[in-house]
C-alpha cells in the first residue's frame, strides 16, 4: 500500500467516512414534508408545444374551389384542449379519421401563420385527390362543429436560419401550397424573417388555388413574391411551361439560395432533374414529405413478380394477434391495415417521422430507395415503417 493520505486530519478523515450514512440521513431528516410537485414550467412548455393529442373543432369552412375547401380549426375546450400548439411555418398536423370500418391517419400542413394559432386558429386546406379516400371523406362530412382528433405539429420542412440560405425559391403545385402559404403569412405578419419567391406550377390560371391570397401577401410584403407557371395557357405576366433550371435561375435573384419543394410526386419527378442541373449543394435543396408514393409498381427497383400479388399480414399488438389482413404488394402496409380498421400509430405517411415504427417477425417487405429513414440498428432488428413498406410475402408484424 502506498503512503497514507491525510486530507483534514487522521482522526477526522476516518470519522467523516464512518459518518457518511448518518450525514445523508441527517440532511433528509431536516427536509420539509411539503407535498411533492412534479409540475413545472419546462414540462408545461413541452406539453404545450407537443401535446399527445389536440382535440379540435371545425370553426368555419371556406369554399376555395369546386373540389377544395379550407377548414378553420379551433381548440375543442370541452374535450380538454385549451390552446393550440405553436408551430414553425411548414409544419403539419395529422388527423385521425374513422371512415366506415377503416381508421386512417392523414397529415395536413397548416397553411396559416403561427401567429394566428395564438388566437386559437389553424387553417388547413383539403383538396380532392383522385381516388382520395380521406380527402373525399373530409370534403363530404366535415362541417362547422365537427370534432377532430389531431396530433401536435410536426415535420422538418421549415426554414432553419443556420442551415438554409435566407433567400428561398419555393416550388409548389396545387397539392403542396400549404407550407408556402404559412411561410408567406408569417413573412407578411413579421414573424418569419426570410425572402421567399414561390414558383407555383399549375395547368391553368383558374386552377391555381389560393392565388388571390398569395397575391395579397406578395403585395403586402417586399419579402414574398409569387410567380405562376402555367403549362396549358398563356397568361399575362405569368410564365408558360414547366419549372425548369433556367426558370429557377431567372427568379433566384442572388447566386446563393435554397430551394424548397412541396407538391405531388409528379412535380418532384419533373423538377428533380432540373434542380440537379443547378449543381447546388445538398444542403440547399429540401423536399417536403408528401405522403405515400403514387405508383410504387413503376419504381425501377420494385420487385416486378410481386406486382399482382396479395399477401396475408398477421398483426400482433400487446402480445396478442389482433388481426389478419390481406395486403396488396403495391400498397403500403399502413394503407392495408388502415383500410381493415387496424389502429396503427402514424403521422407523416412518408417514412420520415418513424411514428409508425413496427417490427417484422416473419416475412419480407420491400422498402423503396430514398424513403427509408430508419435508424441503422432498427434496420438490423427487423424494424420497419409500415407507411413506406410493401409486403413481399405473408407477414407477421408487431405494432405498438
Amino acid at each position, binding site marked *: 500500500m*502506498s503512503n497514507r*493520505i491525510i*486530507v483534514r486530519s487522521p482522526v477526522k478523515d476516518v470519522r467523516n467516512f464512518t459518518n457518511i450514512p448518518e450525514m445523508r440521513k441527517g440532511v433528509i431528516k431536516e427536509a420539509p*414534508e411539503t407535498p411533492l410537485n412534479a409540475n413545472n414550467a419546462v414540462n408545461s412548455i413541452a406539453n404545450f408545444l407537443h401535446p399527445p393529442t389536440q382535440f379540435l373543432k371545425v370553426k368555419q369552412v371556406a369554399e376555395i374551389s369546386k373540389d377544395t375547401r379550407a377548414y378553420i380549426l379551433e381548440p375543442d375546450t370541452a374535450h380538454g384542449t385549451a390552446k393550440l400548439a*405553436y408551430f414553425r411555418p411548414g409544419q403539419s398536423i395529422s388527423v385521425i379519421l374513422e371512415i366506415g370500418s377503416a381508421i386512417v391517419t392523414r397529415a395536413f400542413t397548416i397553411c396559416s401563420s403561427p401567429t394566428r394559432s395564438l388566437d386559437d386558429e389553424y387553417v388547413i386546406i383539403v383538396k380532392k385527390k383522385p381516388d382520395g379516400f380521406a380527402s373525399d371523406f373530409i370534403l363530404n362530412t366535415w362541417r362547422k362543429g365537427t370534432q377532430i382528433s389531431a396530433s401536435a405539429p410536426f415535420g422538418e420542412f421549415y426554414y432553419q436560419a443556420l442551415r438554409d440560405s435566407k433567400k428561398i425559391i419555393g416550388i409548389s403545385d396545387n397539392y403542396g401550397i400549404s407550407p408556402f402559404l404559412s411561410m408567406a403569412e408569417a413573412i407578411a405578419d413579421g414573424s418569419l424573417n426570410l425572402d421567399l419567391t414561390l414558383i407555383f406550377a399549375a395547368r391553368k390560371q383558374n386552377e391555381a388555388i389560393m392565388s388571390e391570397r398569395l397575391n395579397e401577401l406578395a403585395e403586402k410584403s417586399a419579402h414574398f413574391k409569387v410567380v405562376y407557371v402555367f403549362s396549358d395557357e398563356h397568361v399575362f405576366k405569368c410564365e408558360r411551361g414547366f419549372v425548369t433550371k433556367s426558370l429557377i435561375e431567372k427568379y433566384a435573384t442572388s447566386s446563393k439560395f435554397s430551394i424548397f419543394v412541396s407538391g405531388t410526386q409528379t412535380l418532384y419527378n419533373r423538377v428533380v432533374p432540373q434542380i440537379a442541373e443547378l449543381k447546388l449543394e445538398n444542403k440547399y435543396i429540401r423536399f417536403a414529405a408528401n405522403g405515400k408514393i403514387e405508383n410504387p409498381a413503376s419504381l425501377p427497383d420494385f420487385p416486378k413478380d410481386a406486382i399482382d400479388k396479395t399477401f396475408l399480414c398477421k398483426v400482433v399488438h400487446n402480445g396478442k394477434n389482433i388481426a389478419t389482413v390481406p395486403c396488396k404488394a403495391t400498397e403500403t402496409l399502413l394503407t392495408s391495415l388502415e383500410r381493415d380498421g387496424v389502429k396503427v400509430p402514424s403521422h407523416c405517411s412518408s417514412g420520415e417521422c418513424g411514428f409508425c415504427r413496427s417490427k417484422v417477425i416473419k416475412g419480407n417487405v420491400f422498402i423503396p430507395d430514398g424513403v427509408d429513414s430508419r435508424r441503422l440498428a432498427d434496420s438490423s432488428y427487423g424494424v420497419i415503417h409500415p407507411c413506406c413498406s410493401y409486403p413481399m410475402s405473408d407477414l407477421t408484424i408487431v405494432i*405498438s
Partner: protein
Amino acid sequence: MSDKNYDIIVIGAGCGGLSAAVCAAKEGKKVLLLERHNAPGGFVSSFVRGRFEFDISLQQLCGFSQDAEHGELRQLFDKLNITNKIEWVKIPEAYRLISKSADGSEIDAIMPYGIEEYIDAMEYYVPGSKKSMKKLFELADEIEKGFNFIAETNGSTTLKEKRRFNKENENFVRTAPYSVNEVLNALEVPLKAREIFNAHWMHFGIDCDRMSFVHYANTINFLIKYGSSIPKNRSNAITMALLGEFEDNGGEARFNSHVMRILFNDGKASGVILKSGEKIECNHIICTCSPTTAYAKMMKKSDIPVTAVKRTNARNYGARGACVYIGLNRSPEELGIEDYLVYITDSADTASQYTLMKLIDTNNAIKAICLNIANPDCSPSGTTILCLSTFYTDNCWANIPPEGYFDEKDLLAARLIAAYEQKTGVTIHNNIEELEVATPVTFARYTGTPQGTVYGYLGDDWDSLLPRVMTEATDCDTKGLRFCGGWGAQLTGVDAAVVTGRNAAFATIADIDEERSINNE
C-alpha cells in the same frame, strides 16, 4: 384487467429499465416492460435527419472495451449476451480541454489514454505536476479496489467486514468523505493540472468543489487506464440488443404504453393503470422515471411514505441538458476537426463555470463530439457529424414564453456554434446541411424528466454516489416499488443505469422469494 400474471412490471425502457427487465427475465420471471415512447432507449437513443443519424446523448462507455474484460458494464453485457451482438469502435483519445485557468492563462490541452501517457502529457502542459499526478493515479487504483469491495458485498457488510474494509482500504476511507478539489489540494496537484484533470466534470453536472472525489477519481482512472468505446451503429444498437435479449427470454415489451398510476393496496404495490385505462395487476414494480414524478404524478398521497417525501424534497435536480446536432457537408479533414471530444469552457474553475451555466445567456460551455473521429463511416463520405452539447445548472428554460421557444432554440444553436468556432478556430457555419436542437424542453417532452433534467438528482456532497450506495437499503421505503436508471443510486450514465437495473431486478427477485417463503410457512 389483463389475463396474464406478471411477476414484475418495469416502467420505462431506457437502459436501466431494459437491464432490469432482461436480468429478471433471464432468472425466469414473467416480466412486462412498459414504455411510453414508441421506441426503447430513453436518453440512449438516436434519430435521423436527412443523410445523418445522430446519437442523442451517448458520448462514450468509460473503460469499456471489446478486447478486454474490464469493469462491471462489460461483465454485465457479457452475462446478458450482448457484447458480441454489437459492433464496437474505440475512441482514439481521452479529451481536449480549451479553457481559461483561474491564474489567467489560456489552457489548450489534448489528453491521451493510458496512465503513463496521460501523466506525461500533463507534465508537458503543467511542468512539475508529475509527482502529484502519479500519487493521484495510485490513489485512484486503491479507490477502485474499494469500490470493487463495496460492489461485491453490495453495501451490506458485517461489522467485522467493515473493519477489514477500513483497514485494507485506508486511503479510500480517508478520501471518500471529500470533494475532488479538497483531495487534489491535499495531494498538492498544481492548479492547472487540477483544472485539466477536472475537465470531465461536465459529464457529471456538479462542480469539483462539491463532487465526490472517489466517484470522480475512480471514473477518470478507469477511463484513462482502459480507454472507451461506442457502438458503431449508434447507441440504439445497445438498446435493441437488450430488448432482443429480453424478448428472447420470454419478456413482453409494450411501447406507446404510458403508465399513469402506480396502485397500492395495503401499503404494497399492486399494479399499474395505463393511459388507455387498462389496469394491470402486479405486486412488484421497477420504475425508471424520477421518484419525484412517480410520487407526485403516479401515486396517491397516502401511498407515499413520509421519509420518501422528505428525501425527495431534500434533493435537487442535476443538470438540464441541451444539444445542437449538426450534419456537415464536408469531411472532418476538410473542416480541420481532429478531436473526438473537446470540452470548451470560459473558466477552468469548475465552480465559476457552474455559476455561468445557471443562465442561458452566460452559458457558452460546450462538450463537442465529432463522431467521425472515432467512427469514420458514421456518415456518408465527405460529411461530418458534430454534436455540441451543454447543460444548465438551473431551471432557466422555464422563463421562455412558448411562442418564443423556437427562436430561443435557434439562438442557442447560433451561440454554441459561434463559441465553438471562436475557441477551436474551425469554421462550420457555411457547411450545415442538417441541424437539430434539443433543449431541456425537448428532453422533458421525450422522457418526461422534470425540468428537462438529464443527470437525475444532483450528486451533491451528501447525495453523491457513496452516500447513496451506503444508504440504499433505507431508501427503498415503498414496498414492492423500486427505482433504477439515471435517477437511481449510482447517478447517471449507461453503466450506472444498467448496474442499478440489475440491482433492482435482483433485489425484487429477493423480495418475491421472501414473500413466497413467508406464504409457504
